[in-house]
């Protein structure tokens, strides 16, 4: 049992899977000699060589397509998006080929690949480096979408993603790389399709993911003191959703708040609320509520940036309002 920071937990996961399976390789910008923009692959090239830690030219669409071709022919590539936002340039390869090719090929090919890297709103990184692509990619069929949120689940989920036979978009968050956790010993693998119960409660179900999980737990601490008892679930899998866990919680609390960092329009919560209404409408005692980022490019100015994303105090107020019957 050792304490590890999240970036290192991701590194351990990569290292362990590369040692276990020689078809696993990493490719992307500065993943080799430089060690990755957040040091997730630091020094791995010394152990596995330049071909398995492939430093690519800055050509996102092409190296993503290359990884797809390699995956179709039997390798298990991990792509690091230096910043996940850069993968907008690879949208065609991710959507048309990673997402749809297995289907259009009638099952001829499988595409075991992981596309991972830092996303989310950091600290004054400007609009382009503060994107939440999970929402943009959500409609693409054939992709699994996962967001890690702790050092522990980062490791276990990444190992599972590498072993999965499908393309997995794996979202890390720029502001979480230095979170610390005690790591389980041995070969720790966490299933991709299971949500995580963060805090059990009876008053309201809060569904969240990535960094907003920590905003929610912070809010819960304040709420506890005032006698509120929210249940917090980290979705982990953004596609497909784990309705076993989500449904069980809704049947208990009958109230839902979704807290997300992506923009509201076309966001993860937009789809999740629709799906919850489809499945559990009769269980709900109140209108399901979403708390999302503003529908604007993330501003550089720190004050404006804080106003763009949801803050813990807003979650406190929303939970109180919902539990007190004001929604």
């Amino acid at each position, binding site marked *: 049992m050792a304490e590890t920071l999240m970036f290192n937990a991701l590194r351990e996961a990569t290292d362990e899977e590369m040692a276990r399976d*020689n*078809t696993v*390789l990493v490719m992307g910008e500065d993943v080799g000699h430089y060690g990755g923009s957040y040091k997730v692959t630091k020094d791995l090239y010394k152990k596995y*060589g330049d*071909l*398995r830690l492939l430093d*690519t*030219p800055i*050509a996102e*669409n*092409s*190296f*993503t*397509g*290359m*990884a*797809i*071709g*390699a*995956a*179709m*022919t*039997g*390798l298990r590539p991990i792509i690091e998006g230096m910043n996940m936002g850069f993968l907008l340039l690879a949208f*065609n*390869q991710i959507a*048309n*080929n990673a997402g749809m*090719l*297995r*289907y*259009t*090929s*009638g*099952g*001829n*090919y*499988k*595409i*075991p690949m992981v596309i991972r890297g830092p996303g989310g709103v950091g600290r004054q990184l400007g609009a382009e480096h503060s994107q939440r692509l999970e929402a943009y990619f959500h409609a693409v*069929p*054939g992709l*699994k979408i996962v967001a890690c949120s702790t050092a522990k689940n980062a490791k276990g989920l990444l190992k599972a993603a590498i072993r999965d*036979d*499908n393309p997995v978009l794996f979202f890390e968050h720029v502001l979480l790389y230095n979170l610390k956790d005690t790591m389980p010993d041995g070969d720790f693998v966490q299933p991709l399709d299971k949500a995580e119960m963060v805090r059990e409660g009876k008053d309201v179900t809060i569904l969240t993911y990535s960094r907003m999980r920590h905003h929610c737990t912070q809010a819960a601490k304040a709420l506890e003191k005032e006698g509120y008892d929210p249940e917090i679930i980290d979705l982990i899998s953004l596609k497909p959703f784990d309705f076993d866990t989500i449904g069980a919680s809704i049947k208990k609390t009958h109230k839902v708040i979704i807290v997300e960092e992506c923009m509201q329009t076309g966001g993860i919560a937009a789809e999740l609320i629709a799906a919850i209404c489809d499945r559990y409408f009769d269980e709900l005692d109140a209108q399901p509520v979403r708390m999302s980022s503003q529908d604007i490019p993330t501003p550089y100015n720190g004050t404006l940036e804080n106003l763009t994303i949801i803050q813990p105090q807003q979650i406190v107020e929303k939970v109180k309002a919902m539990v007190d019957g004001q929604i």
Partner: protein
Amino acid sequence: MIQERPLPTFKASTAEVSKEEGLRLYNDMVLGRTFEDKCAEMYYRGKMFGFVHLYNGQEAVSTGVIQTMRPGEDYVCSTYRDHVHALSAGVPAREVMAELFGKETGCSKGRGGSMHLFSAKHRMLGGFAFIGEGIPVATGAAFQTKYRRESMGDESADQVTAAFFGDGTSNNGQFFECLNMAALWKLPIIYVVENNKWAIGMAHDRATSSPKIYKKAEAFGMPGFEVDGMDVLAVRSVVKEAVRRARAGEGPTLIEALTYRFRGHSLADPDELRSKEEKEFWLAKDPIKRFSAYMTEHNLATNDELKAIDKEIQAVVDDAVQFGLDSPEPNPADLRKYIFAEE
């Protein structure tokens, strides 16, 4: 008189073709042509739907490239104009025709259609319907071969990948990005540009500041060749050297085959922009007629032998049509099958 870019000349006398190989090349080209003619017929008879892009006129390229490789063992990556590449790679005519009919027995189980032909068994990496998107995938397959050989120690990994695309694609970023990476890492790949002069209605010279595509290889330190794409033996000759280089670990080659499509861009294209003179110029260079003449002049086959092959191929294509017509539709219960790999 129209001004055509001069086609490079190839001395057929240097070709050294055995009777067996000659018949194989002829067979493959006739299969491509006969199959496509049948596609046009089926499309107009309402058996085939969507966009259908035919390959008539370009057969010497598919045959000259793929038949000079090891079909079924080496990788082939194509575009939306992919029927004939699939056939040359060994995908049975039945499976290709059934796919075009949208049937469960098609090579993509009726889920892909004309522009999405796949066969893992025949190492057909796909028909890729968007411009340029197949080039990185092909480059990845070539990377995989190098990786198996150098990182996994698999000495038998000497496969070559052929990536086919058109003149229009040579202005797309994925073309340049992949040429760079393939040259950088000396990947075993052959980039084959089928320059048929027209990207739908955009003439190559109107789209391209420097129209000689093969010369772009030089910017990446890669050999580039232009070849008469209407001459299967000329294509075969440059591909032989490219395959040798690739297998020897010497890296990629860019080949620009100057060719022409005898039909419109797709069967939906009114084909109003290409001049009669231009079409006649190229029709006179029909690669099948040219190779038939070569075969008979060099006593590799008699006219009767070639006619017998034509007849056999017609039977193969007729059988493919019947197979497609008789095949079952996909089961509606399987609508969501193949989205994810089975656990």
